[in-house]
């Protein structure tokens, strides 16, 4: 669209993102050696969420787009969290 400025991300940023993603992948593998018992899934999912966040912000350009897109993403995440919470109202209270 002509009214919007086109953002060009420097290669250096992408390189840093790549390094960050690789580090987190490495972290995911390393924590499997530690016995976290009940927290295992929680930790794995937390790391995965951070990685997804980085991808969304830089690779998928959320950082540079209009705030409308950020509102959409937050809304979707909120619905997702609520769906999980309501499902747990069954599983945690059986």
């Amino acid at each position, binding site marked *: 669209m002509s009214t919007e400025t086109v953002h060009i991300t420097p290669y250096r940023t992408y390189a840093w993102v790549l390094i960050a993603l690789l580090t987190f992948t490495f972290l995911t593998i390393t924590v499997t050696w530690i016995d976290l018992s009940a927290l295992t899934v929680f930790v794995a999912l937390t790391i995965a969420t951070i990685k997804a966040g980085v991808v969304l912000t830089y690779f998928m350009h959320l950082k540079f787009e209009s705030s*409308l897109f950020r509102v959409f993403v937050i809304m979707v995440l909120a*619905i997702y969290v*609520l*769906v999980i919470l*309501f*499902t747990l*109202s*069954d599983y945690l*209270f059986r």
Partner: protein
Amino acid sequence: MTEEKTHHPEPSYLVNTGKYKGLMSWLTSTDHKRIGIMYMYAMMVFFIVGVLLGEIMRLELFRPGQQFYGPQTYNGLFTIHGIIMIFTVVIPGLAAVFGNFSMPIMIGAKDVAFPRLNLFSFYLYILGAGIALTSQFLGNGPPDTGWTFYAPYSIQTHTNVVAAVFGAFVLGFSSILTGLNFIVTMHRMRAPGMTFFKMPLFPWSLYATAWIQVLATPIVGITLLMVVAERWFRIGFFDPSLGGDPVLYQHLFWIYSHPAVYIMILPAMGVITEIIPTFAQRKVFGYKAIAVSSLAIALVGYFVWAHHMYTSGMSPTARWIFSLLTFLVAVPSAIKVFNWVTTMYRGSIDLKPPFLFALGFIFLFMIGGMTGLTLGALATNVHVHDTAYVVAHFHYIVFGGVGFAFFAAIHYWYPKMFGRMYNFKRANWAFGFLFIGFNLLYFPQFIIGIQGMPRRYFDYLPQFTLGMQLSFFGGILLLIGIILMLTNLFSKKGAKAPDNPWGGRTYEWTIPSPPPLENFEVMPVMGPDETPYDYK
């Protein structure tokens, strides 16, 4: 069509201008109006097949005991009847047909944002429907799980579940892409000056619907693939004998399928909101309340899914939470009904066929909605769950609601679509048969349901005979109504339609009937004091 050319400098969209002729010119067209019409014809074929399957079930149920075929055939019949009606008729439903045909015009656009993607959605629709139908002819016989594919039975049955499930999966993609297309269209392509709160209310309802399509459909897609994975590779997601949890299947299925009922009903409500002000010649009462209630229904409708699962062994905590939420979602629906009725109050009512169907919608939808509250209440649900009462309830919503709104919409936009009128007298007769036939078919099901007639049974105790036979005759009247309506609309050419036969105020009534290929010769602009419903 030649006279069209002399009246209007631009040829209508029905005239072939591309390099292909005849059918090919339709199948390769990315025009939103042609795609809408193709969906309409395809859906009409599926609808007729579904109706005939319904009548074949009613025939078997005419008397207790076996009449024409056995229980396994009956199980196959209600499954494919449900799959066809739900996945290929009412879920794409009004959005695919009238959303495509009318929405871009109503917001002052030349087409949807991604016309090719739109045509691709249509092909996915045909492909998905085709795959689902092959389940009837290939493999170990037609699936017998019901359209809900509940685990663990859907994992264990030897019938051809995979084809049906995969067809539904592909149909889901069609739905997601249409939703995405509509969201972008309404964000980017509204006429200058048309802010969101000046957009007509049918597009508003499609906007809410589109978000559900995009956000909920992937869940059922994954769930159905999990069923396939479990059948092929014995992964224990759902089957307890493999270490799975069958209630998890029900959660996942209904996390989509409850919002899916709003995918069906929201566009229906949107059409009714267009028809009522036009035929009452009055400004919509409570424009903002109607627009916002669409979003509220879409949002709250996400969190009521487990009301389908009260008797499945879910925790008591979850049961009361979901019951409470179910009662809450009735509020925005009621807001709409009050606004429709108030819009009619002191209007100059013009009882033409579209309005008659809209009134039929309100009446039947109210019965469907109120009985939904009986089902949403924990204590009563235990008694009527999985009985004919549920069959009556969802037919009142999905056929009495969505179906009648669809009929209303055809009668409303038909002159715009084809540039022809239809015979009002026959349309009124058809409405009479449909309305009486419908109530005679489904109302007895409420009663025998409360008396204990279970759902999805091919046989019954003698005390239900009267109810079943009333339903049978209702089914015949309904069938006559459908034939009358379709022949009236599609068998002969009516008189030429004026551009604005009903005195409507939204943009589609300002352009020729049928519209030119690019809809507008001069792109509309909405002035600062204009609203979509400037009646009085």
